[in-house]
């Protein structure tokens, strides 16, 4: 089940994965993945544990090499793209030294990327941690450490920002603040790819959702397209005196329900159902709702056991 929304363009893709395979011993973590991400897209990578999300991200960052296929990032090898600062990442855990201060950690990153001191102040402010610059990393909360990783990732001013389950372990407020910072940043046109298991995050922040299962893409589209693909949508309308057989006969309706004067029609092509209701019946108060992404996720990832 694949829904492709990506037209091929001549311009360099932000990410170009073709036929990527990665095996660990007898386990195939990524099984022939093709993915093209255009500059400026905000893409969520979703999938159950062991689906191959982190393996894919590691290959995008040059932390591991595919056994087959090619990985290109802005038309460079991942290693070159990292070294040039075209791509940077906020990893889930680790990667910080407790006995550096927040400001020193970012300053070291700046030294390595050949950026001036002013860039350090700037990213600290943008990540919202300018006020704790002199605090030791070991004394920072999980959310503060994550924002420090974000500041480090911003330092090279990358074209592509990769986030691997970036809000794991944060409280609700921390997650909200973190995503606000990311969203502000994405408005500047940066390409963002994030892996998350918080489905509402994918729904709220991604332009495009890529479902991965067993190392393959099982669905790819906007959050609402993917939701429709997985479980259809529901048209609710007020239609007094409707009979169930009549409703079920409408083209595109997969199941129907009548509760008093209200009818519920489930189907994939809800536009056609709505058009039929509005043009050939006295139905009014129409409402089209998607199931949430969580249900779509469960449907898509459980079907082919």
């Amino acid at each position, binding site marked *: 089940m694949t829904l492709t929304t990506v037209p091929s363009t001549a311009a360099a893709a932000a990410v170009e994965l073709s036929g990527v395979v990665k095996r660990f011993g007898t386990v195939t973590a990524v099984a022939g993945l093709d993915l093209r991400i255009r500059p400026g897209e905000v893409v969520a990578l979703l999938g159950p544990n062991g689906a191959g999300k982190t393996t894919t991200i590691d290959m995008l960052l040059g932390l591991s090499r595919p056994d087959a296929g090619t990985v290109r990032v802005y038309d460079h090898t991942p290693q070159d793209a990292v070294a040039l600062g075209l791509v*940077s990442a906020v990893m889930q855990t680790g*990667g910080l*030294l*407790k006995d*550096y201060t927040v400001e020193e950690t970012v300053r070291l990153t700046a030294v*390595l*990327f050949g950026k001036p001191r002013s860039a350090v102040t700037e990213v600290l402010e943008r990540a919202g941690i300018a006020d704790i610059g002199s605090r030791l990393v070991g004394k920072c909360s999980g959310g503060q450490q994550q924002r420090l990783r974000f500041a480090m990732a911003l330092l090279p001013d990358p074209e592509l920002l990769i986030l691997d389950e970036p809000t794991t372990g944060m409280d609700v407020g921390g997650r909200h603040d973190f995503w606000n910072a990311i969203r502000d940043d994405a408005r500047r046109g940066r390409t963002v790819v994030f892996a998350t298991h918080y489905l509402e995050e994918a729904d709220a922040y991604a332009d495009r959702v890529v479902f991965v299962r067993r190392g393959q893409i099982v669905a790819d589209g906007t959050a609402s397209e993917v939701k429709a693909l997985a479980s259809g949508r529901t048209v609710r309308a007020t239609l007094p005196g409707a009979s169930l057989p009549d409703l079920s006969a409408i083209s595109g309706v997969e199941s129907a329900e009548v509760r008093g004067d209200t009818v519920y029609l489930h189907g994939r092509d809800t536009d056609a159902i709505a058009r039929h209701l509005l043009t050939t019946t006295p139905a009014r108060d129409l409402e089209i709702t998607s199931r949430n992404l969580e249900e779509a996720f469960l449907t898509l990832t459980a079907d082919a056991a």
Partner: protein
Amino acid sequence: MSVSPVSPVRSLPRFGGFSLGMIALELRRMLRNKRTVIFTLIMPAAFFLLFGSSAEYRTQRVGDGNVTGYILISMAVYGAMLATTSGGAMVSIERAAGWSRQLRLTPLKPLAYVAVKLVIAMIIGAVSVAVAFLVGSLAGAELPVHAWIGCGLLAWVCSLVFAAFGLFMGYLLPSENVMQILGPVLAVLSFAGGLFVPVDELGSTFATIATFTPVYGVGEIARYPLVQDGNLWVAVLNVVFWTALFSAGAMWRFRRDTARV
């Protein structure tokens, strides 16, 4: 302050990311660690004061200096060794914390990283020797001028073998507390290599074994400007052999490490 929409000019840093700025930050971090400061700067000087500064040792002569001076050199070697080992072993802590992986997301080349670690190890080793010599000069150590300079430099330069040792162990042992293992190991090696007690006082069998242990050569070479006695070529061979062995070990682990990630 805002970022211009124009893509920045992107280029790679010189020397694979090896820079004075990184060395300065890393030094600052290392000196923030109280354990490092105590073990590498305070403890050798304290050992010297405890074991080497008695009135008896001050009056006994060795070469053109006194026994206090002789013991001072041994303690300076011990300090330099601790300092360079912990400098090299920093990689262990950084690997355990995932910092090495984070550094993979920067232009820093793995070889430049190792070079930075070696430079840090040698800087701390130099400070350790300087602190020990300063305390020694104030506490009755007597050495001829050429020995102050020669012994100090040799103690420092030869401690490179332990920078390699620290790196090797740092890559071998993925532990946060690697120095808690290496501290006692170094103490035992120091005994075995005649740094705390002259080897010929331990019997001939032990004295023969001692010449094969890694601390022996450094101690002999560092004391040579003072005593101008002993098997210098054996000591040199010892240092060359162990440096080569530890460097090869560090390279082997380093290669595995960079291939894996």
